[in-house]
């Protein structure tokens, strides 16, 4: 029996040895990958909603788990990267409560009716993330949804008392280290060896997504006077951005930065075609008759009176025809004729209607929300009040060419700043603008098809039409990895973007 005993001990030992037979070169072995000249042991990510992992018009758990910094951190973990702590939301629904009252809606989901028609819908759940439930400790992901460049250096931006009045940001208020702490102070306090900075998007995007209702503040160097939908002055941006990098690199940290994509690469601006109104010939004739007075009398009269130029008159002419037509819109860059027309005895309703009226054209961008406005009735009791045909689309859902130029000019300037400072600080640089352009112009192939910017079906953008899906963020993370590899001579594992989810089908 002693022999049997020995045999059993020997067999247990052999079992252990046999089952521990491992790969010759393990991916988890030190040295299999390397971070080159970068030290990624402590990583901090600074930015806006894109850094936070915001998607589907909300911040929620799986979005945070798939944020590009969290994906980057999972890559860094192979080469000595430490813990990456994110200010996690309380649920996977998104939305915020302040003092028990809902101040932000839950995420969007894709609902389907019985006929299989899809409709982006707000998830019917009550948010459980209470802004005043303060999270303690330091965080590695300092992505603050809604933040513009200068907000990152603004004291009090995380003061919960200022959230209700719009003086502070509810997301930063959840985890700011103190009432007066700035985002950049909290980031520097991490004492990171590596950082990511992607900021400036909202400095133009809030203007663009609101159809240019804000102001272009170029020339105004005091951001405290800016409205929420204004374009930040490029000098202010450059000065703030430079300060952020000074702070982040003060301890010798290396990092990666990304520039600002053009709005025309984002489905929020490109999904609704400018000629979204279908019409048959009879209807077109009837609608045109309504604008006869405007086209044939009002406009020539105004040109004759020197109120508008012949070019503006031509731009303002309205004509529908059989087929696809552009809707009529309010363009606040047109001369406002309302008061003159009223003074000429035109009834105020009509005068207001045609005051800054024109038909959209191929150079205008109809924003995503316009798809649920065009063709609806402005006045449900009046079957003639069709939006886009009899009633102009409001200014805030159309980004005109003139507005686009302001956005584009600011973007070009911001991007020049970002690239110059990245180069000056010898940082890894990601041309997000070029990458999103690639997604918009045909897309990028991955193992199960093409990743494109097409709304709902393209896989890259979430249902809000502005923020990426998890797959879109994974794509960005891979591009950041590539930039880090080429700048610092690193060799890091990539992620397979096909393993990341896109949009969520869900019926309330």
């Amino acid at each position: 029996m002693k022999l049997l005993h020995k045999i059993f001990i020997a067999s247990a030992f052999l079992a252990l040895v046999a089952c521990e037979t491992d790969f010759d070169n393990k991916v988890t072995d030190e040295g299999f990958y390397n971070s080159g000249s970068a030290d990624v042991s402590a990583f901090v990510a600074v930015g806006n909603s894109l850094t936070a992992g915001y998607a589907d018009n909300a911040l929620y758990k799986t979005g945070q788990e798939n944020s590009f910094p969290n994906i980057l951190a999972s890559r860094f973990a192979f080469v000595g990267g430490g813990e990456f702590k994110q200010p996690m939301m309380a649920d996977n629904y998104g939305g915020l409560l302040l003092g028990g009252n809902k101040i932000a809606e839950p995420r969007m989901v894709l609902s389907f009716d019985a006929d299989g028609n899809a409709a982006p819908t707000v998830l019917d759940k009550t948010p459980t993330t209470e802004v005043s439930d303060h999270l303690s400790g330091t965080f590695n992901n300092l992505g603050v949804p809604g933040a513009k460049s200068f907000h990152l250096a603004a004291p009090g931006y995380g003061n919960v008392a200022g959230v209700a009045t719009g003086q502070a940001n509810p997301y930063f208020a959840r985890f700011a280290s103190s009432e007066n702490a700035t985002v950049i102070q909290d980031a520097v306090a991490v004492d990171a060896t590596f950082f990511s900075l992607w900021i400036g998007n909202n400095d133009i995007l809030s203007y663009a997504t609101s159809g240019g209702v804000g102001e272009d503040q170029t020339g105004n160097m005091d951001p405290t006077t800016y409205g929420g939908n204004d374009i930040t002055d490029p000098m202010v941006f450059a000065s703030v951005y430079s300060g952020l990098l000074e702070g982040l690199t003060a301890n010798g940290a290396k990092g990666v930065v990304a520039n600002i994509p053009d709005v025309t690469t984002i489905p929020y601006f490109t999904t609704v075609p400018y000629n979204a109104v279908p019409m048959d010939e009879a209807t077109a004739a009837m609608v045109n008759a309504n604008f006869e007075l405007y086209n044939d009398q009002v406009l020539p009269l105004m040109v004759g009176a020197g109120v508008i130029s012949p070019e503006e008159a031509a731009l303002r002419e309205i004509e529908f025809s059989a087929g696809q037509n552009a809707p009529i819109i309010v363009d606040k860059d047109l001369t406002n004729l309302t008061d003159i027309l009223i003074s000429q005895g035109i009834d105020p309703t009509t005068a207001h209607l045609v005051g800054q009226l024109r038909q959209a054209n191929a150079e205008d961008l109809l924003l995503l929300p316009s798809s649920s406005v065009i063709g609806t009735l402005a006045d449900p009791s009046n079957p003639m009040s069709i939006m886009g045909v009899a009633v102009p689309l409001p200014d805030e859902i159309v980004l005109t060419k003139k507005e686009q130029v302001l956005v584009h000019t600011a973007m070009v300037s911001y991007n020049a700043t970002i690239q110059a400072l990245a180069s000056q600080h010898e940082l890894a640089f990601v041309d997000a603008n070029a990458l999103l352009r690639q997604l918009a112009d045909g897309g990028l192939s991955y193992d199960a098809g093409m990743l494109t910017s097409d709304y709902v079906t393209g896989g890259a953008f979430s249902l809000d039409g502005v923020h990426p899906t998890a797959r879109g963020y994974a794509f960005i993370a891979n591009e950041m990895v590539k930039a880090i590899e080429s700048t610092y001579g690193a060799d890091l594992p990539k992620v397979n973007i096909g393993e990341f989810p896109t949009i969520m089908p869900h019926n309330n």
Partner: protein
Amino acid sequence: MTNRFFILILLLFSTLVAYAGGYRVSLQSGRALAMGHAGVGVIDNAEGAFFNPSALVHLKNRLEIAAGVSVVYSTIRFQDEVTGQSEKTHNSPSTPLYLYSNYHLSDKFSVGLSVFTPYGSAVEYTTDWPGSHLVNRIELSAFYIQPHVAYKITEKFSVAAGPIIAIGSVDFNRNLNRTMIDIDGNRSNVTVKASGVTEIGWHASATYLPMEGLTVGATYRSEMIMSPDDGDATFSNVPNSPMTPFKDSKFSAELPLPAELLIGVAYEFDKWTLAFDYNLAFWDVYKSLDIEFADPNIPNSSNPRNYKNSSSYRFGAQYQLKDNIALRAGYYYDETPVQSTYFAPETPRADSHNFTFGGGIDITDNFRVDVAFLYIYFKEIDESYDHYEENGIKVPFGGTWKTSGFVPSIGLTYRM
């Protein structure tokens, strides 16, 4: 001597055969396992009911019973250098059992009843691991109940035959695809479960004793297609959407237990027994694992396997150290039935080298204990499964695989 030498050469170089791979487990004998699981030509105890029932009629004792158990410790490792993903199964050890009997009705006739588990697989990956769209975990087993009647036609030639009743069960879980989650972020998955699935087959064997000490034999077991038609498919964490109509449903499927042919020869001289077996498993019957759901809204699942017939080549030797102590060692080469680009993670097996040793002690005249140890060595292999589809596009899943295994086994023989 010339004869012996000739036979040695024959044993070492004869065109070879064997069985293996897939979800086949070759652990049917505590004695033979120590000799590379070669036993078709060995006339020794009731374990012949598996290897060659026609040899049992040559046993000297009126009643022979053998029983045993093996403990399978195996680990599958996976890694992908592009993504850094790595995985290691955490299978709990499986314990295939056997029980054989043979009873001489007369000098020419013997009968017996045996139970053994020729097929089985227990693989458990970390839930939601990178290959979870193919398998999270699978537990598959079939045991055979096999009566036999053996008849000695002449002193040198015997045959045996009988029915086989196969009883099988399956418990399989995988995620519905690579990305689907419910609103809370949990991965959508399906479990298919069926048990008590039965099927009838048959076996036949023959033994020839051309000269003193030399035995040749062959055994054939028929193919059986296990067809659960009332299994339960349970869907979990499915999004609430008409686009994902996955409701719990009955399912039907077909899983083949392939036919196998065992040919063997053994030669006994002095204190030595040398054995060689060739096994051929007719795995090419396993084209695809197709699951049909009773609910017409659920698309059926087709999972190409495209196995090929596979051989095993088994060599074993026994040395009678003392009257009551035998030492054994063996080797076998086991071909995988899995073809390139069909390396599904449920059985990502490459060809394997298998090393065995063990021994037996006669405790009394009626009672013997055999122990055996098997070490299974698989080379690292870069392989993939290329037949999973998403949106009609084939999405390969692959990387580097390495499997290893260790099996201790104990067998008891009772004779009177």
